[in-house]
């Protein structure tokens, strides 16, 4: 029974009846007007389509199916009320959160939210072809059947082998809006969504094969991702299966919204719905026990709230057969002790290594420092500022970051993009920063984080600052091949040079170094003989403006040219980006997933250009940059280092 139609007709009848009764006596104009009014009223009732209802099984290829029927439905419950409710009382906080990339982590496709080009785009990767089109406000992909590929994977077969049927699927969801945007299409299993194996590089405005953007062993095949299996936990609010025995995901909200950090808000909302309770709360110093405010929690608790997503681990209830974990979704709630429900994968964790040894080992430097971005909680808790500090003086994520009134780029609070972040606690250096750093006060060498939080983490085709705050150590670099802040700026300097200055300025002993470490550029050697992560991070460093300003990055061009043909596609891309950041190579064209011949051709072109540039490299750097007395490349030494390249497989859980 359509109550809307019934009430509509009753109201229309009630209002028009007196007029209709009088109609025989009325003038022609009144009669005409009344007839038109009746026609419009009935016309709307007849012509307006009935209210849409979610079909039991949506046709994945039907453009008429509303997108909300293809994606996990929004369902409130379990104490969650969604950010819409928060807005009515907290409009400023809602507005500042609204401009963050956390909110736009998961979105439905609209012409405004889709950042990629779908204008008749043909893409080809690994022998598979994709045709991207736009149909009005909808985005469609003609592609190898994702159902077929998932079935192959479930049967332990290579999804890239065989000949799948071609199908046309509508893009139903996107993840990411900051660096990359990934696109998801429905597969015919519950309401599962599979990732289109292409991502849109927002800065470069180009499509990249998803498999080639991430650091993973070169022989890795198709990486099929299901949003409902993994991403839902952190990229949506309160994602869970509708019931224990049904593959049908429901969420409270797409994206990372208020209650992801503040916890379920129903109790808080119900309490403060009463105006008297609100007025009592104004000015009262009492802690609100109905909701969690990370800013008022201890450093440990507030950091754990961020760490519930910005870490890596196994949910402790995951292997518990009796746990209805799918149906209940995440068990951790803000304010809880994170480690009650999550077994964190720290350095050397045997369980992590038993699950995936390559990933577990790739994620850390050998000194135990995390080297993968997005999991910063695991790095931060190893910092002396956190681990060695008392609770009241402990550093937390919120010491520098905030989800409100901050720069959406890194969520840094106001003034936290400079030395003020560290000077909050280390005030004694405020007046003597140049004395402490031995660099000009306004130079990049006097930025606390350039030395104490160097770019030794990696994710999404860029190096990221390590969140393990530490003192630069040439000894660790020597023993573990971990880059340090000094050599990340001074690209043409050796580890011995760093060790000497650390001893001279800070009395830090390094111990004996090898002849290579004494004589050759630390960055150059990592570019040539490091593992994939070391090569990637070092390549990024060569394009870092602060480093280019400080040192002769032109001297590293031959090594970057070598990386253009690296087995890891991501390393090739980073080497190309570093080269293109130099004005001598800014017009360079390179397809990092192109043929080997193409890569070799570009290598040759780069070396040809470098031959004309090498005269600009200062003579005192020649030896460290493996140039002979005439400024020519010491090819033998280059090849020797290349031969020692660490080809242990590296896979980053980015």
């Amino acid at each position, binding site marked *: 029974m359509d109550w809307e139609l019934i009430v509509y007709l009753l109201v229309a009848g009630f209002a028009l009846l007196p007029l209709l009764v009088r109609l025989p006596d009325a003038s022609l104009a009144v009669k005409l007007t009344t007839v038109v009014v009746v026609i419009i*009223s009935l016309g709307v009732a007849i012509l307006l389509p009935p209210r849409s209802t979610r079909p039991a099984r949506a046709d994945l290829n039907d453009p008429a199916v509303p997108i909300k029927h293809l994606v996990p439905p929004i369902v409130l419950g379990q104490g969650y009320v969604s950010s819409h409710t928060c807005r*009515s009382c907290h409009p400023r906080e809602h507005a500042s959160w609204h401009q963050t990339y956390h909110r736009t982590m998961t979105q439905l496709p609209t012409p405004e939210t889709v950042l990629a080009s779908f204008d008749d785009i043909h893409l080809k990767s690994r022998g598979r072809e994709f045709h991207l089109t736009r149909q009005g406000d909808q985005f469609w992909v003609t592609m190898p059947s994702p159902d077929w590929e998932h079935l192959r994977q479930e049967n332990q077969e290579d999804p890239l082998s065989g000949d799948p049927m071609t199908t046309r699927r509508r893009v139903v969801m996107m993840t990411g809006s900051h660096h990359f945007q990934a696109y998801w299409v429905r597969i015919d299993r519950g309401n599962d969504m599979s990732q289109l194996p292409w991502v849109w590089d927002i800065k470069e405005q180009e499509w990249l094969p998803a498999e080639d953007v991430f650091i993973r062993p070169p022989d890795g095949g198709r990486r099929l991702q299901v949003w409902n299996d993994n991403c839902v936990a952190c990229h949506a609010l309160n994602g869970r299966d509708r019931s224990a025995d049904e593959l049908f995901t429901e969420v409270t909200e797409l994206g990372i919204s208020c209650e992801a950090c503040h916890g379920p808000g129903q109790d808080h909302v119900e309490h403060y719905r009463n105006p008297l309770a609100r007025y009592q709360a104004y000015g009262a110093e009492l802690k609100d026990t109905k909701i969690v405010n990370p800013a008022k929690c201890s450093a440990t608790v507030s950091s754990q709230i961020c760490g519930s997503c910005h870490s890596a681990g196994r949910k402790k209830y995951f292997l518990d057969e009796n746990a209805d974990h799918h149906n209940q979704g995440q068990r951790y709630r803000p304010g809880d002790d994170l480690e009650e429900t999550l077994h964190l994968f720290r350095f050397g964790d045997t369980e992590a290594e038993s699950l995936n040894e390559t990933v577990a080992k790739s994620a850390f430097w050998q000194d135990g420092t995390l080297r993968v971005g997005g999991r910063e909680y695991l790095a931060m808790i190893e910092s002396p500022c956190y681990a060695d500090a008392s609770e009241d003086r402990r550093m937390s994520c919120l010491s520098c970051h905030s989800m409100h009134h901050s720069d959406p780029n890194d969520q840094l609070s106001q003034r936290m993009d400079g030395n003020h972040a560290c000077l909050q606690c280390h005030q004694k250096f405020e007046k003597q920063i140049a004395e402490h750093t031995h660099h000009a006060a306004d130079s990049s060498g006097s930025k606390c984080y350039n030395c104490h939080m160097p770019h030794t983490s990696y994710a999404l085709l860029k190096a990221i600052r390590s969140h393990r705050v530490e003192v630069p150590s040439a000894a660790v670099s020597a023993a573990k091949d971990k880059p340090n802040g000094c050599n990340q700026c001074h690209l043409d300097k050796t580890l011995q040079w760093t060790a000497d200055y650390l001893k001279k300025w800070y009395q830090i002993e390094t111990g004996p170094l090898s002849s290579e470490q004494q004589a050759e550029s630390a960055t150059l050697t990592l570019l040539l003989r490091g593992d994939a992560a070391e090569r990637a991070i070092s390549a990024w460093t060569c394009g870092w403006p602060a480093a280019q300003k400080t040192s002769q990055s032109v001297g590293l061009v031959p090594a970057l040219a070598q990386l253009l043909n690296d087995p890891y596609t991501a390393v090739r891309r980073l080497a190309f980006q570093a080269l293109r950041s130099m004005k001598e190579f800014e017009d360079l064209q390179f397809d990092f997933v192109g043929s080997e011949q193409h890569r070799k051709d570009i290598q040759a072109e780069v070396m040809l250009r470098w031959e004309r540039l090498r005269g600009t490299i200062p003579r005192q750097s020649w030896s460290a940059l493996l140039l002979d007395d005439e400024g020519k490349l010491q090819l033998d030494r280059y090849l020797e280092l290349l031969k020692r390249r660490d080809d242990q497989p590296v896979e980053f859980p980015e």
Partner: protein
Amino acid sequence: MNAPAAAPKRRRSQSSAVKLLTPRQICRGHLRFGWISLGCFCLLGIFLETLHGFKIEWYLSEAMTARRGCWLAAHASGTCFSLLHIVFAMTVVYLTDWRPKSRLATSYSLYSASVLIPAGFLLAGWFLRDAKPGMGMGLVLAAALLLLSVLLATATNTMRQRAAAS
């Protein structure tokens, strides 16, 4: 043969004479309707403020933006119609040259529009369709025509009255 044919005409004429209201009767009806409905829409305003006060989600949440807009429009249009009834009541007693049938039809049209427009907005806000106003907007559209006819008829007769007076 003629008598039965003439009888209905007389009855109809008698019927019309009975039901045609005088300007003062029409005035009284519109004054009554105007003041009562002003009270009702004042109450609706208080009700909407109460929804704000108690932070009622199905009125304040982002998904209910259309509901808030519709109900606000119902409140505003209802209040305006109440005032229009009072103005119409003051006008109708002055317009003595207005043909009785036309005057009564205009009066009823105003009553109909006064019910249809606020009720249409209320209905559209109550039965949302994908967070957009519902079917009730059809009533608003239809009633807008009625309102237009009322305004035209009143304006025309106001001019005619002035001409007669001069």
